[in-house]
């Protein structure tokens, strides 16, 4: 696709919208797994921004893509540990609602 008629602020606005949607889910969801899903939306919005700014402003160096690679890896690790924590909480407290989980020792 020819990018010459597609301005950079299209991508910036799109990731702003996605970030706001993810932020809404992050605050309003009760289920801890749904909160983690909202974090995935926020991280994907940030990744899109990284790639768009790299593509338009610094296409000669590949720093933006390297950043996204590291972010995707960290997100995968975060999901694995996050889901293990959620399952552990579910086993001890029999709920995964973040507003009912109020104690730190099981």
């Amino acid at each position: 696709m020819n990018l010459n008629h597609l301005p950079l602020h299209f991508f910036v606005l799109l990731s702003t919208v996605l970030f706001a949607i993810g932020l809404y889910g992050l605050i309003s969801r009760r289920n801890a797994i749904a909160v983690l899903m909202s974090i995935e939306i926020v991280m994907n919005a940030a990744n899109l921004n990284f790639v768009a700014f790299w593509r338009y402003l610094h296409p000669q160096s590949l720093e933006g893509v390297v950043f996204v690679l590291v972010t995707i890896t960290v997100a995968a690790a975060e999901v694995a540990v996050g889901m293990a924590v959620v399952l552990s909480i579910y086993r001890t407290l029999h709920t995964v609602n973040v507003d009912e989980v109020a104690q730190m020792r099981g």
Partner: protein
Amino acid sequence: MSVLELALLIFLTAVTVFSALMVVAVRNLIHAGFWLLPFFLGIGGFYLILSVEFLFALQLLLYAGAVMVVVLFALMLTRDVMNPQIRQTNRLYVAAIAASASMMTLLVVLIYRHLGALSVPPGLVDSDAITRRLGTMLLNEYVLPFELTSALLLSAMLGAIFLARNPRIEMEEESGE
């Protein structure tokens, strides 16, 4: 931009934004988990538009593959995720709408005030060489973050196994012997 390209762009944007909305809005959490799939694919489509095919492949493998599976497994192992009678939002949802809407308004106003700095033409990239150069960069300038990533993944894997094991079952097995 031709009509076909414009239609494709509008379709991709609509799919991405709508599925993100569905992920945060639907009550059935299994459905919310499945709505993540078109969202990840849409983001991958934007990576294709920005001519980084390698990131598109990674997005498919890691997000649409691995993360989706882990999320759906975790959802199926907990209860009350498919009952549409149960409210899935907490008391703060009005505040959440206000917070995210005001943040979005602030950012959009900021973007429009700096539209001049943002209206730059896209740089020329050789999309065939990106993946090759990425590999060279990861093993030269960025070899330390690259290796640290492997340490992070290993410790995350060990931590996940440690957290997810069931101590009660292990105790029963030991006492049964």
